[in-house]
């Protein structure tokens, strides 16, 4: 596929339309008050969907050379790694599992202590 693809009008207008609808949807969902973890999941899910539409059709990745998509995905992957690995610390800071405070073997009572 060539990077020179001229994106058909119906794709551009359709994408914009879908983005408008999804924006309305995400606001509507906000006012419904979905219970705790799911509200974030839905909000982020809609945002990811919108972002994919922008990347594929406005930015033309759908027709473009694969390497450009790979570059974008790489940035997402490394962002997720950064979040995930940082949270291994921040989420578990007050949950020690005692790697430092294993009691040392009790000193033998017969040792020649000075």
């Amino acid at each position, binding site marked *: 596929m060539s990077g020179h693809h001229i994106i058909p009008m119906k794709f551009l207008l359709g994408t914009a339309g879908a983005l408008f609808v999804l924006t309305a949807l995400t606001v509507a969902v906000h006012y419904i008050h979905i219970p705790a973890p799911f509200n974030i999941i839905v909000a982020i899910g809609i945002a990811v969907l919108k972002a994919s539409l922008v990347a594929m059709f406005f930015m033309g990745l759908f027709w473009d050379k694969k390497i450009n998509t790979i570059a974008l995905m790489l940035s997402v992957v490394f962002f997720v790694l*950064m979040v995930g690995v940082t949270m291994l*610390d921040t989420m578990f800071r007050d949950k*020690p599992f005692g*790697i430092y405070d294993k009691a040392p073997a009790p000193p033998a009572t017969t040792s020649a202590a000075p």
Partner: protein
Amino acid sequence: MTNTTKPVAIREFPVEEFPETHYLNATKGLKSWMLTLDHKRIGLMYLASVIFFFFVGGLLALALRLELWEPAQNFMDAETYNRVFTLHGAVMIFLFIIPSIPAALGNIFLPVMLGAKDVAFPRLNLASFYIYLGGAMFTLYSMAHGGIDTGWTFYTPYSTNSGSAVISMTFGVFIMGFSSILTGVNFITTVHKMRAPGQTWGKLPLFVWSLYATGVIQVLATPVLAITLLLLIMERTLGIGIFDPALGGDPVLFQHFFWFYSHPAVYIMIVPGFGIISELISTFSRKVIFGYWAVALSSLAIAFIGFLVWGHHMFTSGQSELSTVVFSFLTFFVGLPTGIKIMNWVATMYRGSIWLATPMLYAIEFLFLFTIGGLTGIMLGALSVDIHLHDTYYVVAHFHYVMMGGTVFAFLGGLHYWWPKFTGKMYNETLAKIASVILFIGFNMTFLPQFVMGSQGMPRRYFGYLEQFQTLHQYSTVGSWILGVGFLLVAYYLIVSLVKGAKAPSNPWGGRSLEWMTSSPMPAHNFEHVPVVIHGPYDHHQPIAEFRMGIDAPHHDTTHA
């Protein structure tokens, strides 16, 4: 894309020896250098700057070592000492070692090795050089205005409160980050899009592979440094409270941010060095590199794994026990691709006809020093050992073995290897070998005692120390003088070479990659023809004429591979 290429005729293009006009004198005048878009000239300007800052950082190091001659105050006070070690670290890392191999040697040779006329974005390349200089100006400014005493890591909360020139220093580093990013973007694009006809990924010189992996790290990691330093600057100016515990922030989070860049940055520093060593060992053993794909892909593997191990700098920071365990575990994986490289280099030398010219001498010294640095790194990666050794001279010795024994020796090897190519002059081989041995001895004398001191509990960055360490500290200081003498000798014979060195032939070492298939120094556009690659870059068993192929046409109009 249409692939209806007409069959093209190729023929050998003999190399013009000792050309009258080349890239150094194709155009004249200061302006033709300041505004040049030629990657070779930009690389040379980078090289000069980088060597200058290495000199500055080296003087600072000598001052530090001299101060440590005695356990108590010698000739500078504790505050000055703190500023000098911070500056030594910051100058060596941000101004010397990060741009050293990629932006200087890489800039000169990456396009030539690809058979391209230039990098993909010559103007961005020039911009990156001036951005680098701009950042360096800020660093010098903060040096003049009170200096900075936080250490090169700028840890909060000290860096948010310390009364020194933290803002100008971090802003300088922030600016230099852009320069690094531009270099990375340029190199990746160039490797993807500018390869000569016939040069498949499997025929790329390993130096190019290593620069590619470096570019990937630069592009993925450097922006995080930028945002970290921006947040730090905001913390100092506005008190945004994200990192400052006094304002409800979390200083350990700063360390996560900082090391998400700075650990991969360690590989920005060393991976190009690996690339040089691959070139040297194959050329001077007259053998195909052992395990081409293993060496090439291990660079990418290092780039990837390097992003997952940053927490091993933070074992004692108070991060969660879970993450210390995970980071320690992951850290060992970095040893795998690195070990693969060492094994393959040694296997390449096995039964080769080894020519112990100066560059090869550096390569072999590299193998010794880097292996010591790498193995001590494994010890430091082990959680239980690191708790004992954290922030001691053991760490200092470890990263000097990796960074100086590794990268600087590789840089010197590359400098001597390509010196005839980009200057067109030979240097004094005897003096070069003597200097190399002096550097090797001086280096070990400086840093081996530091392993011992560290394991006995000498903390790093301390101004005063217990008297029991004095003998070892003095050994180390004498070693630093030997190092200084070695570098002066290198500077001496290289300057002599520039002034009255013998003219260099186009291929003094019998290399097989494309940079040896053009004149020394190269023509302004690298090649007078479109080179065609039919053999791998280390196929020493193939006739050399077949490495000098080019498209036989006065005006080329073929599509790129």
